[in-house]
């Protein structure tokens, strides 16, 4: 079987349709991961031991188990207890929560990297806790986090093909259905690989730029 360019152009619109969903899932998933990750990081710092321990264990559990199984769990188990989600929503929640446990670590490291002296200086300058967070801690903690967060969002983008397993019609699923109905695997599967590779390589360049721009803030 040989590579057929006519077939490539014929299937391109369908693949692009799927690619749009892939991008949508990545953006929504990244938003979920960014918000829930922050919540997890704050809960992890809670002075109440029961809260911080529970959150720690749950994050550990989510990070130690496969995303695919978590997606199945959300997609198949939740409807049994009355929560019906569309495949895309289930996928975004699954992928977002999975990566939230990773972004939480980034937030935690970023916050802990702000020297104690800054907190003390904020106190000495008579700032309230809120002012200390907004004007002193976060402006120093956030920029170094950006490259690390971006790194996880790229990783998340690469994981979106898993959503095809819970019937989200993203790039991989479109490619699979094209492959199955035409019984031609070479073009669709290779194109999916090329799509992901191209976006990843471009984002690596973007990541380098972010690192140069933000990573060195401490001196």
């Amino acid at each position, binding site marked *: *079987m040989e590579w057929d360019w006519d077939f490539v152009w014929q299937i391109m619109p369908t693949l692009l349709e799927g690619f749009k969903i892939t991008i949508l899932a990545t953006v929504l998933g990244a938003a979920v991961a960014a918000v829930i990750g922050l919540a997890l990081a704050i809960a992890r710092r809670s002075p109440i031991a029961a809260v911080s321990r529970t959150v720690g264990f749950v994050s550990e*559990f989510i990070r130690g*188990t496969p995303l695919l*199984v978590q997606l199945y*769990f959300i997609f198949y188990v939740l409807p049994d207890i009355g929560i019906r989600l569309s495949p895309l929503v289930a996928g975004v929640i699954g992928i977002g929560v999975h990566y939230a446990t990773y972004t939480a670590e980034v937030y935690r490291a970023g916050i802990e990297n702000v020297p104690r002296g800054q907190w003390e200086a904020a106190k000495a300058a008579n700032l309230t806790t809120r002012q200390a967070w907004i004007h002193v801690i976060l402006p120093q903690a956030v920029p170094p986090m950006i490259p690390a967060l971006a790194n996880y969002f790229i990783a998340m983008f690469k*994981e979106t093909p898993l959503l095809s397993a819970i019937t989200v019609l993203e790039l991989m699923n479109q490619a699979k259905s094209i492959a199955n109905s035409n019984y031609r695997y*070479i073009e669709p599967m290779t194109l*999916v*690989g090329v799509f992901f590779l191209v976006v990843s390589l471009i984002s690596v360049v973007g990541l380098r730029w972010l690192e140069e721009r933000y990573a060195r803030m401490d001196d």
Partner: protein
Amino acid sequence: MIDWSGYLSLILEGALVTLQLTVMGSALALVMAFLAGLGRLSRFFLVRALATTYIEFFRGTSIFVQLFWVYFVLPFAGFTLTPLQAGVLALGLNVGAYAAEVVRGAVKAVGREQTEACTALNLSRYQRMRHVILPQALPLMLPTFCNNAIELLKGTAVVSLISLTDLTFQAQVVRAQTGNTLIPFTTILILYFAMAWVISVSMRWLERRMTRNLDGVRI
């Protein structure tokens, strides 16, 4: 009333397949990590270019896409693989690419003065790597290798999509036959987590063992 004992043995059979995949995949990943990681530090441009291409290629797309490509596209090129072979190949090559960066980073983290001392002692390049650099670099690699191994374990769930009867596949079988979703998926989540825990405990043990002989070498 459902007789769970039969289904439990089905799931345990799946656990065995997952275990097999993890062990064989890790072995391949380890070999690829050292080949590509040291290859990137080679004197020869061609070796460096080859190693870099391998690493960027496999880190640029997800394990899912690679697995489908290996399983569905390679047969057209004349390589027909069983699902197990395809799984081990894709997992090993994918995680190997990530681990290669770890090898490179750890080798580069060993101080320059060590290399200079080797030159002064007239050691050959091989002797330098084998007796001076690697013994110091290995303990640096282990914590990240542990994460890589857990990523590989999580990656094995994807092989269920090419009909390999691993944990995730068996859970789907149980779901299809009993209509119960909570029990099979919770069981396999716990099993995956237990396996990840075993990996991290044994890696920590290995790390302690390897650093024991290095007492006094590091400051």
